[in-house]
């Protein structure tokens, strides 16, 4: 199997020319496409989970934020508690759900990306819901009153509130993405950290790869993968902030 040095990746990560003389980098090598495949799996699983979670969390947060009902504070407490829910426990619960004995056993999802998405969905939903709820609740009541008094329907008022709260919602999505992409325990349990016979990642993510490399004493490799992970998070943050600023201009 041909080997692909990781060094060519570094200009992207470090933002400068490759320094082949650095002793730290001399011994690093991966199977062809290995790094790309774990980046792909990391992004695919995390972005899909966060997208699904956003589609679920934002309407729930608006519904809770706009409604007055008995037990509203309890619902908020449950959501806030969910932000600190141990990820390994989430992984165990999802693993049980998709195992042969579990309710989703017939779907044959053990050690698949879909199971990892389920796990990350569960982890990302509490922070996205809680922060969105706080952002929506923080919108000035006068703005809601004005939107309604000007003839807005419930949907119109909700859209106005969404626009006013968009920075908070962007922060919520970033927090959810941060929790998902940096997750190790649950994706290790439900995904299995698997690569194919060709060395291409099936369920291995950057975090589980870092964990594996560090456990094997490959600290340099783990460091490089960590740098790639940080670069990815920074890139996603920059994209979200950029679109937020464009929203203001419009």
């Amino acid at each position, binding site marked *: 199997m041909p080997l692909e040095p990781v060094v060519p990746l570094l200009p992207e990560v470090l933002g400068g020319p490759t320094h082949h003389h650095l002793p730290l980098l001399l011994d690093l090598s991966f199977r062809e496409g290995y790094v790309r495949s774990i980046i792909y799996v990391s992004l695919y699983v995390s972005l899909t989970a966060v997208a699904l979670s956003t589609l679920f969390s934002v309407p729930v947060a608006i519904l809770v934020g706009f409604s007055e009902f008995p037990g509203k504070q309890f619902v908020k407490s449950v959501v806030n508690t969910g932000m600190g829910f141990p990820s390994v426990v989430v992984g165990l619960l999802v693993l049980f759900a998709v195992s042969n004995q579990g309710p989703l056993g017939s779907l044959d999802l053990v050690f698949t990306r879909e199971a990892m998405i389920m796990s990350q969905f569960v982890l990302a939903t509490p922070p996205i819901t809680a922060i969105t709820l706080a952002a929506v609740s923080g919108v000035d009541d006068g703005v809601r009153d004005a939107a309604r*008094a000007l003839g807005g*329907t419930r949907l119109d008022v909700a859209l106005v509130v969404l626009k006013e709260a968009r920075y908070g919602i962007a922060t919520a999505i970033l927090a959810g993405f941060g929790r998902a992409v940096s997750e190790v325990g649950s994706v290790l349990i439900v995904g299995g950290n698997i690569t194919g016979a060709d060395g291409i990642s099936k369920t291995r993510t950057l975090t589980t790869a870092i964990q594996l490399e560090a456990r094997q004493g490959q600290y340099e490799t783990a460091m490089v993968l960590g740098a790639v992970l940080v670069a990815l998070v920074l890139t996603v943050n920059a994209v979200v902030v950029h679109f937020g600023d464009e929203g203001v201009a419009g």
Partner: protein
Amino acid sequence: MLRATAVSQSFGGERVLDDLSIEVDAGEVLGVIGPSGVGKTTLLRTLALSLEPDEGSVTLEGTDVWAAGEADRLALRRRVGMVFQEASLFDGSVGHNVEYGIRVRKPWSDRIAAAVGLAGPPDAVHESLDVVGMTDKVNQHADSLSGGEAQRVSFARALAYDPDVLLLDEPTSDLDPRNTAVIEEAIDEARNRGIGVVVATHDMHQAERVADRVAVLLDDGVTEVGPTDVIFDDPTDERTRKFISGELVY
């Protein structure tokens, strides 16, 4: 035109409005004067069809608003405009704000076309801004306006969709004399357009300047309603006389 009959409104067991009746006709300005905390805002929100009265009825041209179905009630609500004490402008340009009431009355296809820039702002936006002397600020962001300018834009926003009734809740309480004069001229223009205007204010001089009729709202409800000159020069109710003369101090 817009009539509240024997309405009562309570919050948390406290009676804010008690068996109160009031009416405004097309092309007249009704001033509602009374001390702070007496229920003027609650009365206006009830007239704005935002609050369902605990008892009594609100009718618009003979149609009982709260006996109507939801769709009919929305149509009735859209014939009433309201300006609040705080401008509460939306995040966006002045034109975007003033167009809001027109926009929410359009079908979604037209709204999407406007959002993607296929349709410019309607003439009513410029006409309304002209009434408050703000046409040159149409593209300026709402955040950059002074308090007085923001309140003028808030007035134009409510005027733009040509409501049958316009409710103004302490519209100049935080404004300097110049901006107050602009708003009072705009009230006069609304009357000339045949709009029924209700101005709630604790500024008796303003009521005397702008109103055709005045309702005096004290702790025990409306003590007297009548032509402005009669209320200020020759009130029949003793409490009204004491309030007008300043003997009844809150």
